């Protein structure tokens, strides 16, 4: 982890009609770290994600990535600038094979033009092979290369989750955003996931992790930020956050006599 700010989420407010989903939230993500973003249901975690990845345009505030403002970019441009994400509910291209799913992500970086694709030029074929090789490599990193040519819908659940991560990595992001990657996992699978996340970080990616499961977040994250009712209530090392009274109150509810 360095002191270089990779993503600066700057005083973002997000309103839907009269509902304020995020109010004046600021989070910095440093290059090379694993930042955990936690909070009770409806705290605004996924909204945070959606603003970062351009699904929503914030009502106020800005998102600065790698020194440039990405607040108003289109989604595919945000991906091309280096942010990738997975989904809480798995959204694979179910009729395509595992490796093809990953290749769709890898294609975002490729340059061959339409005429080149039609004529199957040397450049285009080289690119195609490069995409394929890289995709297979990512599947191997995720430990799912053995079923690369199966249709995504036929893969077991754990494979599908890891395939999503492989696909996101294929876009060559600097920041990888994981939305509840441990959902539906048993303890052994969670342990595997932790190791996987470390392996990804060691390859030089910065990771933003949204997670419900405390065992994953607290073990993996370098720092943790906590949202509650659309506001950031704490930020710091996992050990600090764990003992923060506001966080405990948000998660466990404030006892009646203390209120």
């Amino acid at each position, binding site marked *: 982890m360095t002191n270089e700010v990779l993503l600066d989420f700057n005083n973002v407010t997000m309103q839907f009609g009269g509902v304020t989903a995020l109010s004046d939230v600021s989070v910095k993500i440093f290059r090379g770290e694993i930042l955990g973003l936690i909070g009770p249901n409806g705290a605004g975690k996924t909204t945070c994600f959606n603003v970062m990845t351009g699904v929503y345009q914030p009502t106020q505030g800005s998102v600065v990535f790698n020194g440039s403002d990405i607040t108003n970019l289109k989604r*595919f441009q945000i991906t091309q600038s280096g942010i990738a994400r997975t989904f809480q509910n798995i959204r694979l*291209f*179910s*009729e395509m094979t595992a490796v093809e799913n990953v290749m*769709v992500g890898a294609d975002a970086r490729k340059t061959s033009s*339409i005429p080149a694709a039609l004529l199957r030029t040397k450049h285009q074929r080289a690119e*195609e092979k490069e995409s394929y090789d890289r995709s297979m490599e990512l599947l191997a990193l995720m430990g799912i290369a053995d079923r690369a040519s199966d249709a995504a819908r036929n893969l077991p659940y754990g494979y599908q989750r890891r395939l999503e991560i492989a696909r996101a990595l294929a876009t060559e992001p600097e920041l990888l955003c994981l939305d509840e990657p441990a959902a539906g996992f048993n303890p052994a699978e969670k342990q595997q996931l932790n190791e996987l996340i470390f392996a990804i970080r060691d390859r030089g990616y910065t990771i933003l992790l949204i997670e419900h499961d405390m065992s994953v977040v607290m073990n993996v994250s370098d720092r943790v930020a906590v949202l509650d009712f659309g506001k950031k209530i704490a930020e710091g090392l996992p050990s600090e956050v764990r003992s923060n009274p506001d966080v405990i109150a948000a998660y466990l509810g404030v006892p009646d006599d203390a209120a």
Partner: protein
Amino acid sequence: MPDWLIIRIFWDLTVTGLALGSIYALVALGYTLVYGVLRLINFAHSEIFMVGTFSALIASTQLLNIPMLEDGNYPYRTGAALVFFLVFILLAAMFISGVGAIALERIAYRPLRGNGDAFGAIALAFLTSFVIGLIFVNETKANLIIACVGTAPISYSYLRFFKKGKKAPRLAFLISAIGASTAIAEAVGIWGPNRREQYQTPRILEKKVLFSALGTDVRIDYVIVIVGALLMMTALTLFVNKTKLGRGVRAVAQDAETARILGVNVDLIIVVTFALGGVMAGGAAMLFTMVYDQSRFNIGFILGVKSFTAAVLGGIGNLKGALLGGFMLGLVENYGSALFGGQWKDVIAFVVLLVVLMVRPTGILGESLGRARV
């Protein structure tokens, strides 16, 4: 009827049915591709086919200067000249139809997706002022001048409206499709040199028998149609399965939103999809004019409906389904019209469609809603 005659007719019908079916299949691919990606039934696709037949006609009479002989026929070509002529006409038809399909998307559909650009605004503004001018003046030249003058202010206001990025409801796309279809056909029917009459396309290929098999004489033009169509379909399948853009088309067909987040330029993919459909329709149009030697302003209508039927029959959104549906429809129509008489041809096609949809509502190979198998 003696047995040998029945068999002979049967194989005759099979050959002509397959030839007709390959044209249906090529056009059906366009319907199915656009449906797979946009969930839109592009009714104006039939007019892209019609434009293709006229491109073939213009390419052969104007660009290649094929002269009409005194008896109303055209001189046959042979050897390399023939191949060059056919390929040139084919490429011209494919190119114009492809460009036409892209223009159609930009003018008739993209503004409705809340994504309108300057090209669409100017084209729509020109059409608007042209149509308004038609109400007052009945002189083509004056009308064009009025249209050009009106384009600037109207396109400015269209563009400002487009900037708001309003998305139209689903039904609007269908209305736009039907409107574009009628407008294109009628424009050719009103301003084309033959108006609403038939055009004869030059017959440069001598339609002699290539070989005889199973008691049937197989004509060369049928062979070219079937083989040409199969080649084009193979090329399309390879493109969709083996290239980056093809993967993009499949990804967008399955989940446009996720594809967008993964860095796929969805607008580009939509353009590619229309272009692919247009190119296939252009190829179909050239093959059609080669076999039937004719075109007309409304030639796309019934053929388009049939091809759409073929796409639904096989399972819309499904490329293999479009091929299967096309060939099936061509054959069934031919056998049916031999059994019951030619006037029942269209009835048979639609009865088959109804029966198949009653048994398999998603078409023979299954359709694509939510699970596109482009």
